[in-house]
């Protein structure tokens, strides 16, 4: 297997739509994928991300739009002519063949010689660290092993693009986290353009170069993981990536305010006039005494509603005087534990100016 990022291909999706009757599963989606990039399509079920993947693979016919790979239109090509590797959610390994035969299948279709096939199968099995499994039967493999064989089979013929449909959803938590790193490692080594579909935001954040978030069939936002986390465009995305609390703001002459309180914002944020909300990430709020003053931060007065122990952190539910509930997360360490407020106590929440984010309310 060659590691040659220069042979990876870029993908361009334009105005892609898929309607089932009147229902729009995918509506006017356009975006570009750079060669060699690891892009994750993220969204809740029914958001259209899997349908989009299926259209790129060729198993679903678009109602409208264009899909180009390196400038070439592929939307009318049947799946077996697209030369795209695909890993399905249930792996779909052929049960009537051994592991080796499974992996050899695409090579046989492409009329490779016997020696060449054996060589490639061996190399790809080594890559997924299942070198001795060539003669095993599919029924003898565990879930994680099947996943790696499915991946091996999808990349053995060196496709320029790899598609994955919720590849890790069937694995348990431990295995999932190991495989996230494994898959990323293989991606970096082989340098192919990878498009992966998932509903798990942690998986998306861990593995991707960029994430495209989908909602009701439309592309809500496409950005790097930190870009999405720090600057979500609207409430839906902010809620989908990481946890947040939101408090409504209103536009006054002096700027955006929560009730009477003017909000201190970092300079580069433009004032959004349509239903602005202040996004409060739980880990970016500090709990302080009601009388602690802080000129630079935004200070909100409130009362602790409950404290929830969550192992590595403590989650506080705080009711602001303005009537909104806000979540605060503190690390479970001795420094914090010394000054822990209790349920019923009045406290002040501090939000640094640079941590203040404003988002649109509607999706």
């Amino acid at each position, binding site marked *: 297997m060659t590691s040659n990022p220069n042979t990876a291909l*870029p993908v*361009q999706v*334009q*105005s892609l739509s898929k309607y089932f009757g009147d229902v729009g599963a995918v509506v006017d989606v356009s*975006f*570009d994928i*750079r060669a060699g990039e690891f892009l994750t399509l993220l969204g809740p079920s029914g958001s259209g991300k899997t349908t989009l993947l299926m259209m790129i693979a060729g198993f679903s*016919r*678009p*109602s*409208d*739009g*264009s899909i*180009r790979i390196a400038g070439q*239109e592929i*939307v*009318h090509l049947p799946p077996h002519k697209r030369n795209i590797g695909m890993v399905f959610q249930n792996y779909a390994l052929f049960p009537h063949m051994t592991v080796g035969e499974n992996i050899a299948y695409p090579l046989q279709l492409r009329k490779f010689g016997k020696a060449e096939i054996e060589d490639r199968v061996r190399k790809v099995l080594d890559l997924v660290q299942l070198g001795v499994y060539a003669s095993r039967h599919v029924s003898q493999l565990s879930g994680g092993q099947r996943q790696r064989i499915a991946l091996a089979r999808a990349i053995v013929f060196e496709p320029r693009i790899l598609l994955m449909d919720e590849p890790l959803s069937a694995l348990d938590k431990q295995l999932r986290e190991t495989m996230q790193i494994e898959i990323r490692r293989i991606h970096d080594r082989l340098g192919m353009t990878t498009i992966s579909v998932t509903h798990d935001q942690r998986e998306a954040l861990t593995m991707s170069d*960029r994430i495209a978030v989908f909602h009701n069939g439309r592309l809500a*936002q*496409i*950005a*790097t993981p930190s*870009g*999405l986390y720090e*600057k*979500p*465009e609207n409430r839906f995305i902010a809620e989908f990536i990481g946890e947040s609390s939101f408090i409504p703001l209103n536009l006054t002459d002096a700027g955006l305010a929560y009730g009477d309180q003017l909000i201190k914002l970092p300079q580069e944020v433009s004032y959004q006039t349509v239903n602005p909300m202040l996004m409060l990430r739980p880990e970016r709020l500090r709990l302080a005494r009601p009388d602690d003053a802080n000129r630079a931060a935004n200070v909100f007065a409130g009362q602790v509603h409950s404290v929830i122990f969550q192992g590595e952190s403590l989650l506080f539910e705080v009711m602001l005087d303005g009537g909104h509930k806000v979540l605060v997360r503190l690390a479970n360490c001795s420094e914090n534990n010394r000054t822990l407020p209790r349920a019923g106590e009045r406290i002040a929440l501090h939000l640094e100016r640079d941590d203040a984010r404003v988002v649109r309310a509607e999706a």
Partner: protein
Amino acid sequence: MSEATLQASFSTVSQVELERNRVALDKDKRSEARAMFRLTLPAVAIIGLLMVVPIGWLLSMSFVNLDGQIGVDNYRLFFNEPVYRDMFISTFQIAFVVTAICILLGYPVAYLLAILPPPWSGLLMLAVLMPFWTSGLVRTFSWLIILQRNGLVNSALIGMGLVERPIPLVHNMTGTIIGMVHIMVPFLILPLYASMKAIDGNLMRAAANLGSTPAHAFRRVYLPLSMPGLIAGTIMIFVMCLGFYITPALLGGGKVKMIAQRIEESLSLYPTWGPASALAVLLLIVTAICLSISLYLVRRLSAGRE
């Protein structure tokens, strides 16, 4: 798109190209549907040319009189010739009796099949399915052996002193009925079993809990719920009885004439195929009516469940 979206420097696709895609996609969809349709053609051709078309032809032929004119003479035969009247009566008589006996014999079997746990249910199912693997001809012949004058049944009856002379059990309606029940019972059991299997076990328990005896619960809860399957199976075997040939031909001894036999005879009895066609059409119509009634009743009974 806001500043969070990164754009790569690709040329965008023009409207003309998008339109071209739409056309290509549409063409592709239609050609795939056509290819799939073509895959069904061999099977469709066989059934269409050898069953659908001939039956349509039968219909038209039934309206051609013996002298070649269009008319309903063939149908008038049914009213004029007493042979036909007897045939209709005996056909329906036998069909009713056979169906009734089948229900009596088959309902308990289907019930047991539905409530037995595995592996017993599997064994019972095997026993019920076994007759399907034996030819109707062989089964009919074996009844000939058993029911004949010096056959098993008569020897047993004489031996036990119940009768003095052998009773004629075969070459008459009795033998025909015994033989037909033997063939039809499995056909009743299967659809009945399928519908019984779908009955929620908790319903009977709930009835018991509310104070009902097993017999009462059966009558008021189970029996009504098994009706759709019972009706479907009953009408199916009734229709099969109407059109049956082998058993009445072999065990009827010439005294029993059902429609199927009459149709076959009519081919050689009359100079044209008109009478045979008319009878065939009649059988077809009765079959169609019975099936429609069945569909209607099943749908209505099942809808009431929702």
